[in-house]
């Protein structure tokens, strides 16, 4: 994926001072799978929250219903001044009225775990939410398999994502740089830094866990692969891990978007569309 500029140092010297060096950073396949993945995950989080609303409790183990003990519940209870949204995490009970448990949608007070503006569709409809969720689950899985297979064969995974020993040693410095909002420039900006590598590998792991825990919730797939039930400690545990991994993916997305903004949103987004990335100059 080297460019003419990289391999011809004479040319670089001839480039006017102000013009930034442009490298071909993201191959077509990375760009395509990135956007399909982004779309699928966006839809699956929204529809997943709608599905969660149909039974807003999480448990550990094989079984669990309101008659058992959930470790997390998002419910509405009657208060002196109308319904209150209560989020129960273990023993602590938090009043989350307005966001969780009780929220408003176009002036209407609704008693549901996640608010309308976060769910697909916005109204509570388990049947429609499942249609969205499973259609995009197929897209996520097909897209993910293409990406993983290509990443292994083209050594993208080994070369660009797997941290080197030097990378691992530079973790403390990289953490400090990130905290100071200092971004790599010049040569260092041409490769992913160690925290980026770990974050992307973490995301891949989370998506794989999402798919596996999702399949563990399927009574049909369970008959084919009962070992999944043992791996995750039961269907209800799998459902809870599914939710926790989704929370991890949301955390990734927030950090990812913030970093894109900090690193130069136009250049970053442009590079994920056209593939071409302007390397930030050493000093500025």
């Amino acid at each position, binding site marked *: 994926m080297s460019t003419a500029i990289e391999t011809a140092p004479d040319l670089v010297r001839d480039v006017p001072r102000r013009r930034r060096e442009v490298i071909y950073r993201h191959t077509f396949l990375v760009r395509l799978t990135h956007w399909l993945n982004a779309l699928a995950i966006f839809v699956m989080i929204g529809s997943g929250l709608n599905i*969660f609303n*149909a039974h807003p*409790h999480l448990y550990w183990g094989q079984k669990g219903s309101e008659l058992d003990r959930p470790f997390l519940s998002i419910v509405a209870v009657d208060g002196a001044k109308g319904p209150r949204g209560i989020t129960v995490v273990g023993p602590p009970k938090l009043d989350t009225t307005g966001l969780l448990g009780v929220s408003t949608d176009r002036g209407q007070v609704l008693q549901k775990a996640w608010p309308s503006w*976060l769910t*697909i*569709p916005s*109204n509570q409809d388990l049947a429609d939410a499942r249609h969205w969720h499973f*259609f995009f689950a197929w897209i996520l899985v097909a897209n993910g398999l293409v990406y993983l297979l290509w990443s292994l064969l083209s050594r993208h995974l080994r070369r660009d994502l797997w941290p080197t020993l030097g990378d691992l040693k530079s973790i403390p410095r990289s953490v400090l740089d990130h905290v100071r909002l200092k971004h790599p420039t010049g040569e260092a900006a041409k490769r992913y830094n160690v925290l980026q590598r770990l974050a992307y590998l973490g995301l891949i792991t989370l998506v794989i866990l999402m798919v596996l825990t999702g399949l563990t919730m399927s009574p049909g797939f369970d*008959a084919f692969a009962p070992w999944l039930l043992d791996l995750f400690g039961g269907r209800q545990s799998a459902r809870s891990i599914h939710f926790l991994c989704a929370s991890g993916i949301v955390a990734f997305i927030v950090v990812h978007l913030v970093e894109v903004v900090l690193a130069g949103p136009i250049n970053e987004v442009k590079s994920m569309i056209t593939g071409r990335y302007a390397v930030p100059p050493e000093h500025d």
Partner: protein
Amino acid sequence: MTLFTRRTALIAGAAGSGLALSGCSKILFGDKLTASSDFQHVLAHAESWTLASQRFLLSGGALAREYRPADISPRFKPNGTLYPTGEDYEDAVNEDFVTWRLLVDGMVNRPLSLSIAQIRALPSRTQITRHDCVEGWSAIGQWTGVPVGLLLKAAGVLPQAKYAIFHCADNLEGEPAKGGEQAPGQYYESLDLVDANHPQTIIAHSMNGRPLDVSHGAPLRLRVERQLGYKHAKYVQRIQLTDRLSGLYGGKGGYWEDRGYEWYAGI
């Protein structure tokens, strides 16, 4: 310092507009697309992909996991109809279902009409399985009953039959957890002959060693262990063999199917 503040504002702005955008786009695009029948038609492909792939993976007739007696839920959540309305059912409860009949008819050589006593005398299967509701919860119970495949064999299914329809005695008004208001309707369900003939597909007459109670579908309920709870029809009165699902109630093969849920509930 000014740079930091500017950056902080930028981050907050980006995060805020991202959230607002996701909210708006869900309401604007998500809901519009959900309301579009063309788009629903596209989404519906997922069900056939799931059915085809699970049929392939389960072509060996794999069984759903069976659990130990210690795993049985101390309290198994009853769902859907908890007590069917109507004098006929009330009378049946009062006389301990002695006049209840299970019909097996439609596209069969020898229609059957079986009493509960006759069904209890047939070879039975007992299984401790997990019941997974489409809403997300699970409960484990022990079920005893006659394999549906055995009844179909006794009745002699005609070659053109493709589905077994399970007619129930209850009229359900829907459930808020499943979304919005639902029109009341007679409960029914359907399976194709692959799932109907699966060894764990039984017409259960007992739960946890006792005759079924009313909230769990007395006197007979369907168990189809590799699919979600709404397929497990309660208060079953009749198994009708047919070659199509259209023309019956909403035409989609079940009470919840007629209200938008997948006919194949293996996921």
